[in-house]
């Protein structure tokens, strides 16, 4: 009964949406801000990857909110999982030799790859979020292998807090100098496609990468060790 009712409701919703879709032809979009960003993005932000310039500069405030959400999730998860439960004493099997050796071999490579992705965020596909996720997956490997022994909680706390602060501080510096707008790109733009170009965009993406990496790693750590 419930299933049939739900399906009926969904069909009604779907019909409604389909009736409004004819205004949105596929492959032929109405792009007012999109066109502006493509045409002006290079001069105004100096980033070769226009998606990056939209994410960090045109819509940088959204990104600040998004970083906040990830921070919230990490904090909320910590508060939910630790608020009453004690650390459960589970027996963990030691990881196999293959996993340990593989981890030692792969770990620096994964970290390097993650760092490469977020440092080159303004030049090639990728950026802070993708790079951060890759770094977090490196930490997942560590937890699987060593069961979170020697995990430095203070270090991750400092990393995530200070990278968040750097993001806001860069914004506030933009408010204080240059043309007095929050998050305005006050550094020189440089040559297109150079590593050192696009003003504050790479700096912000590095901060985001560190923050996302440490937060996702913390989420995984909390779920694995404290639940």
């Amino acid at each position, binding site marked *: 009964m419930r299933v049939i009712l739900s399906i009926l409701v969904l069909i009604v919703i779907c019909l409604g949406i389909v009736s409004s879709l004819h205004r949105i032809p596929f492959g032929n979009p109405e792009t007012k801000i999109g066109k502006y960003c493509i045409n002006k993005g290079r001069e105004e932000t100096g980033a070769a*990857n226009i998606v*990056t310039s939209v994410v960090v500069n045109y819509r940088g405030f959204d990104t600040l909110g998004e970083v906040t959400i990830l921070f919230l999730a990490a904090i909320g998860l910590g508060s939910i999982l630790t608020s009453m439960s004690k650390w459960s004493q589970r027996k963990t099997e030691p990881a196999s030799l293959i996993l340990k050796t593989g981890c030692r071999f792969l770990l620096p490579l994964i970290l390097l790859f993650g760092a490469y*992705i977020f440092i080159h965020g303004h030049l090639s596909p*990728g950026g802070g979020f993708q790079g951060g*996720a890759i770094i977090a*997956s490196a930490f*997942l490997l560590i937890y699987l292998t060593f069961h979170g022994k020697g995990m430095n909680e203070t270090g991750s706390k400092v990393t995530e807090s200070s990278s968040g602060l750097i993001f806001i501080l860069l914004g506030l510096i933009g408010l204080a100098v240059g043309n007095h707008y929050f998050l305005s790109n006050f550094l020189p733009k440089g040559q297109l496609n150079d590593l050192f170009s696009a003003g504050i965009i790479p700096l912000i993406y590095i901060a985001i990468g560190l923050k996302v990496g440490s937060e996702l790693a913390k989420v*995984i750590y909390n*779920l694995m060790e404290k639940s």
Partner: protein
Amino acid sequence: MIIVVSLLIVFMLIAAIAAIFFRDLLNAVIAACMVSLIAAILFYFLHAPDVAMAEASIGAALVAAIFIIAIRRTQRHEE
């Protein structure tokens, strides 16, 4: 091209439907990640490489890891 895309989308929808019917939650999670992975390929076809990377690394890999950890801590089979 269009045939490849259509096949991918059909696979994606089949994987999503499979996620409804699997009793074993681990299988359902794998199916959901299959959906994410195919979505990542579709993003690439739609000329969105950034999003494809994010979806593949976050949506498919990390989400799967988080799900599997949670299932290990709870129960594996749907009653």
